[in-house]
């Protein structure tokens, strides 16, 4: 029972990790928290649905195309809607993100109405039995893909020149500008990467759950909860926080009450911010004035 819960928790947590990481990537370089990110995740899932189910493209090329589409969408969003309001109050960014999220959600609902779309399972292999333990193909697929992506992401960050550039911008936008990094373009690309990473989460979750225009909202909250738990702004914190959250949800649901699965994330946010506002790995975030 315990191991079974841990595995389903980890596969949920893997999705949350992608969402939380993509939120963090954008936050670290632009100091904007994308309150519309859940809807980017939703958009990724819907684009892959259109490509695979409606146009009949095979899953893998469809997934790559969806990620690419969301990358471009994120880039255009940054270039067309975030840059023009840079001069205004910071609250404007958050409102812009929310508004764009609602626009995407509205479009999805206009096209698909209130129906709930089932997505065919991608990894149609018989589940593996290890004693009492059942491991589904989907769980392996989700955890495996996420692990590969995360390793690649952190390797790029730690080992390559691009990674050094990212670290430079994270430390100081101004300093990065002084040594010749085009920070504006960097931020646009970051938005693209954020949207694309989120889309991967959406594409992975689509086959194991039902698609509807409102799935984004819950992912946003889970992403926030993971970030808060791991430490707001910490990249590895976001991943670890997400995995912990995924597992915690399953335990809370199984051992206490199933209704708790829905609100574990909220409780995590409230408790962490009250008890330890900087989370597990974050820097002190509290204002002392």
């Amino acid at each position, binding site marked *: 029972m315990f191991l079974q819960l841990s595995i389903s928790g980890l596969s949920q947590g893997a999705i949350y990790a992608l969402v939380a990481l993509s939120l963090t990537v954008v936050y670290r370089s632009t100091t904007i*928290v994308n309150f519309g990110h859940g809807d980017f995740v939703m958009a990724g899932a819907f684009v892959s649905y259109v490509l695979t189910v409606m146009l009949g493209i095979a899953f893998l090329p469809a997934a790559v195309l969806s990620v690419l589409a969301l990358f471009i969408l994120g880039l255009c969003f940054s270039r067309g809607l975030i840059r023009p309001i840079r001069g205004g109050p910071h609250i404007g960014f958050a409102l812009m993100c929310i508004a764009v999220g*609602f626009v995407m959600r509205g479009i999805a609902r206009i096209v698909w109405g209130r129906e709930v779309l089932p997505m065919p399972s991608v990894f149609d292999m018989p589940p593996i039995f290890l004693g009492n333990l059942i491991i589904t193909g989907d769980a392996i697929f989700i955890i495996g893909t996420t692990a590969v992506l995360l390793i690649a992401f952190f390797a790029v960050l730690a080992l390559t020149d691009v990674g050094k550039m990212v670290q430079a911008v994270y430390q100081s936008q101004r300093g990065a500008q002084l040594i010749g990094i085009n920070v504006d373009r960097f931020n646009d690309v970051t938005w693209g990467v954020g949207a694309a990473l989120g889309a991967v989460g959406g594409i992975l979750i689509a086959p194991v759950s039902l698609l509807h225009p409102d799935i984004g909202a819950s992912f946003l909250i889970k992403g926030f909860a993971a970030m808060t738990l791991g430490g707001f702004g910490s990249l590895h914190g976001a991943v670890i926080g997400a995995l912990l959250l995924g597992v915690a949800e399953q335990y809370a649901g199984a051992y206490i009450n199933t*209704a708790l699965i829905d609100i574990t994330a909220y409780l995590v946010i409230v408790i962490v911010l009250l008890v330890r506002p900087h989370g597990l790995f974050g820097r002190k975030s509290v204002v002392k004035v």
Partner: protein
Amino acid sequence: MMPTQSQLRLRTVLFWMVPLALLAVPLLVNSYVQFIVNSVLIYALVTLGFNFVIGNLGQLAFANTAFFGIGAYASAIATTSLGLPWLATIPLAGVAGAIGGFLASGAALRGIRFYYLAIITLAFGELMRWLYVHAKSVTGGTDGLSLPRETVMGYSLTDDRVKFYVFLVVTVLLFKATLNLLRSHVGRSIMAVRENEVATASLGIPTSRVIVTGFIWSGFVVGCAGSLFALHTSYVFPESFGMLHLIISFAMVLVGGLGSVLGAVLGAAALTVLPEYLRSFPGMEELFFGLIVIAVLLVLPQGLASLLRRVSPIFVERFYRE
């Protein structure tokens, strides 16, 4: 350009003349228009309360929907379970909303600000919605609660024209109270925190407490609006307090003008009338309000109130960021 003394006096006269003129509305319009006008009054209060937090206090918050729901449920529960007359539940709903405001923002006392506070308020709102659904014995779960039919001094409270007069009195009182609060030292501290918290604190103002105060007043105003909403639709259920209501509130605040009290009326009036036609198409409202917010942010960041300010200095306030 600031208004002159005579313009200020004219403004005071206008503030009381407009509601007096509105008293004639029920005599002039049909029942459908009356229903819309009632909605405008409720949304004006919702926008006023929300604007108080995001426009005047300058904190990002998502709990507005929660305060609205708390007020509506407080009113519905007090009338159905406790048997109180609806009129008596308005202040009760306000207090419930104010308590909600304290709970949503209490973390500010521990030094939690902006994004973190926003996320807490988001979580608070969702927790409340979870509670509406799961606390079945009190809230009626997903079925919701319907309010009993009542009369006040012989007039039936199911009549939209009777409701209008009650709504109008509550709205005018809360607008006047908010204006007074904004002009007091509390209001000035609230706007000072928005401009520069460190500088405000250096003047010896307890900024954390100021932030919580802002949320409490916002909760009170929106809670009262929730109570009106409960009677307006005579039916309270969780769906009314979801994400759609959130984007509507954001859009109304922005369209009217961030931080402007006059803007709260303008935003509510403009956006309550327009989308009535969209209601029957799923998704259209979300698309519409989303696009409105984007357009306002790009083209008219100070909202409709800023257009009026260009016409006459009478409409200049000291509550928004220049």
